[in-house]
């Protein structure tokens, strides 16, 4: 597994891999994770939850860092001789994987993390040698793990054949993220026992949390008892706190998101770009009513009016009006909660994703025949 970051910095992609790793291990897949040593204090090697994690140095400015990362990965890959390399993101993880393939002929699986204007492919196009990198990815990567229709369409557009595009959506553990009694939970989390709207995720610009924080002043005019709960940290964290008015709670990076989600009522994801948001899957599994921008996998997951509300991206008025609808209508919220959880249990469970990945690895794996 090659991924940009890993513990302790956890975005959606990292958390997804962290939850999948033990399940894959149970299915007999030995996993090693290669990631960046983005902070000097981090150990170059560590075993986290029974999974070995190698952190490779990333010195100097960006292009150099990427190159150094890729090159230093090679001797280690030569030593470990993986049967399959799985790159998480089409940018430098995929480049590293392709370099390994070129040297050792290891089959490569690549997961496209995000689609849309700020997605993996769009970013790649703007990078140095973007065009040729896309070409080599198209040729070199054996299978693409696709998590949304949006991403599938983008890959099709650059000419990746259908048999190479494998739909394996992100999964969530429906036992860990499950609805339950809120009242006691709120008490123990020190949250008010009244309606709670939650955002969970990085506080980075493309998430557009600012839109939510800005309209909250309007929301509490009509629903003064409502609380906006913001989970996560990021580059915008401080600015958002400065901006926030009354009844907004910042909890930062919490160790376990599950109880916070369970304690909430409505989930809002105002992002301008997404792959398949784990936070959304977790919220749906927790029985929350979601309001989500129609980007990335959200359009596969949310049927507007049936299990959530889909709104156009970058439209604050839409966030406000949808919030007011759901705050006024408990019945609708409960209905969304029931149908949303059912969908996640059926199609987006972590165990289903692990099984599909396992099958994919085994299909690509060419056992080296013993020398005669």
């Amino acid at each position, binding site marked *: 597994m090659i991924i940009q970051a890993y513990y302790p910095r956890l975005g959606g992609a990292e958390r997804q891999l962290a939850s999948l790793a033990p399940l894959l291990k149970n299915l007999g897949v030995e996993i090693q994770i290669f990631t960046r040593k983005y902070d000097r204090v981090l150990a170059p090697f560590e075993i986290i939850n029974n999974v070995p994690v190698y952190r490779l140095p990333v010195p100097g400015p960006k292009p150099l860092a990427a190159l150094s990362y890729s090159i230093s990965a090679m001797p280690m890959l030569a030593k470990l001789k993986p049967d399959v390399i799985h790159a998480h993101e089409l940018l430098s993880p995929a480049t590293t994987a392709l370099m390994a393939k070129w040297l050792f002929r290891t089959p490569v699986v690549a997961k496209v993390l995000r689609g849309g204007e700020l997605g993996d492919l769009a970013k790649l196009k703007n990078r140095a040698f973007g065009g040729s990198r896309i070409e080599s990815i198209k040729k070199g990567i054996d299978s693409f793990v696709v998590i949304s229709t949006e991403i599938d369409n983008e890959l099709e557009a650059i000419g990746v054949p259908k048999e190479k595009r494998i739909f394996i959506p992100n999964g969530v553990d429906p036992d860990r993220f499950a*609805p*339950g*009694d*809120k*009242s006691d939970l*709120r008490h123990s989390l020190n949250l008010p*026992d*009244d*309606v709670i709207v939650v955002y969970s995720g990085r506080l980075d610009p493309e998430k557009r949390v600012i839109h939510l924080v800005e309209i909250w002043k309007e929301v509490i005019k009509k629903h003064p*008892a409502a609380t906006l709960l913001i989970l996560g940290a990021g580059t915008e964290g401080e600015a958002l706190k400065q901006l926030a008015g009354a009844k907004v709670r910042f909890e930062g990076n919490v160790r376990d998101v599950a109880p916070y989600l369970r304690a909430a*009522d409505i989930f809002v994801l105002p992002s301008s770009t997404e792959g398949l948001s784990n936070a959304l899957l977790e919220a749906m599994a*927790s*029985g*929350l009513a979601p309001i989500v921008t129609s980007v990335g996998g959200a359009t596969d997951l949310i049927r507007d009016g049936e299990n959530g509300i889909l709104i156009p991206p970058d439209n604050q008025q839409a966030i406000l009006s949808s919030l007011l609808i759901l705050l006024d209508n*408990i*019945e609708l*919220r*409960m*209905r969304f*909660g*029931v149908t949303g*959880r059912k969908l996640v249990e059926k199609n987006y469970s972590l165990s289903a994703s692990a099984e599909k990945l396992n099958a994919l690895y085994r299909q690509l794996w060419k056992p080296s025949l013993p020398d005669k």
Partner: protein
Amino acid sequence: MCGILGLAAKQLPDERILIAMRDAMSHRGPDDAGLWISSDKKVCLSQRRLAIIDLSPDGHQPMSDATGKVHITFNGEIYNYLELRQELQAKGHIFKTASDTEVILEAYLEWGEESVTHLNGMFAFALYDPQKQQLLISRDRAGEKPLYYWLTPDGLWFASELKAFTANPNFPRRIEPHALDSYLTFGYIPGDECIFRGVKKLPAAHMLIYKLDFNEINIHRYWSLPEPPVSVASTNELLNQFESLLEDSVRRQLIADVPVGILLSGGIDSSLVTAMAARVSAEPVKTFTISFPGHRVEDEVGYARLVAQYFGAVHTELAVEPASLDLLPQLARQFDEPMADSSMVPSYLVSRLIREHATVALGGDGGDELFAGYPTYREILKDARFFHIPSNARKMIGWCATRLMPVGMKGRHHLMGLAGDVADNAIYYNVMFDPHTRARLVPALSESSTRILKDKRKYLNPAYTSLQQVTRMDFQTRMVDDYLVKVDRASMLASLETRAPFLDYRIVEFAFGCIPDSLRANTQEVKILPRMLAKKVLPAQLDINRKQGFSIPLKAWLKNEWFDYSQAVLSEADENIFNRREVNNLFESLNRRGFSNKWRIFTILLFELWRREYQAVL
């Protein structure tokens, strides 16, 4: 409120027969009568009208839309008709009357069959679309308004009451054995079954489409209860939402062009309705209650008086004497099908009283099903502890109870219910005659009524909690086919329209789709959320832990004032149906301690009175 009747056939019968059938329901609509026959003489729609909204002749029914495309006969009220009217006007529809009836017609022209889902109200209507050559018959979500249909090789009849059919000399008055079996098992006839062979009830929340060309009916459900919530909103929020929904429902249901009153028992539900009504009306509300002088338990007029005073209501009390015995045959007839609910007596008496002062009355019906108010729910939850006993042991005990304990001995049904699973137990709480006893009582019914108990399991979804299961079952069976029938027929006999603000479908969806079990009932308390609201809005002196309904001192009356009469009736009970010795045994047990057979005696008594009235044969 009205009585509707209609027919679609290759050839219509003599108009005099149609009029006689229609007028058998005059009590449902003493104000006006109408009969409409299509130009091709294939369809007849007719109605007896009790004028409530738009008292002018414009409200006359059957009604056609402004362009004469579709025709309707309608019984009920549409509580959101003003909004729908506006919405339809904005879409270019033109209205010629101020009635809610016309709104249904225009809604159909706009949205077709799906239009019924736009209606918030209590209704049964038949709409004829000549262009499609079809009749659309629909019944409201909770089943407040009745509808019977009778499909013959020549065509389809429908009516609000069976009395319309029995007024037709050609109607065969044969008893349907399966329905009799259901009646003896539950004390009412559930679902689409009807006591007369060949007739069916259209179940609540269903729609029937009849194609004239093929003489075929197609029935489908247009609305279902929402699934139970997986997530839970805060108690505060739920309480506020409940209050605002109830207030809105009461506000809508107070709308009428005639005087409106409230049936106030002094229990939580009718007291909450009174509270909301007082809040939204400019005038003092009118409340009505009945008393049973000399019967301590049933006579709790003090509570009703307290609530009425607190809200400044104009309050009327009526004392009921047991002399009302002569009412029984009249009620047995009025109820169309045999029904063993003794509160039909006070329901009728209070309706008659109210009718002197008002034409419309609001009641607390539905509150107990929606918010788990029956004390049996507490018991069913407590019973969970018995299911730790191995099932073989429970089966053995049930077997012994069935055969060794005499009928009516207290605890017998409980042991029998516990012999099965959670569902059997819930069902047994409301069984009149168990299959074993029923077989001895009516040997003429060859089939075992075990099947009837099994049928009822279709209302129980094992994926839900036992409280959700049992309240859903009661909402869809006992409430529709016993309690709502009782309210409809008893009030209609007095030409009074009753309304049930709790049964506004938004409150129904809220109750089943939003409220967690923890706010409905547990082993200690029932009806938790309404009691929270009661604490907030009702007078503090009101004892909100009591269970109060319109009930009569049945056992005392059966032992005293009604004794001779009921014995006389039962001694002449049809021997082709009942085993005389079994009936006598039941009667004798009235004086034995540790026995409770009053309901079972009432069940047979009412059946016999019904059979005599309708001269029905098995």
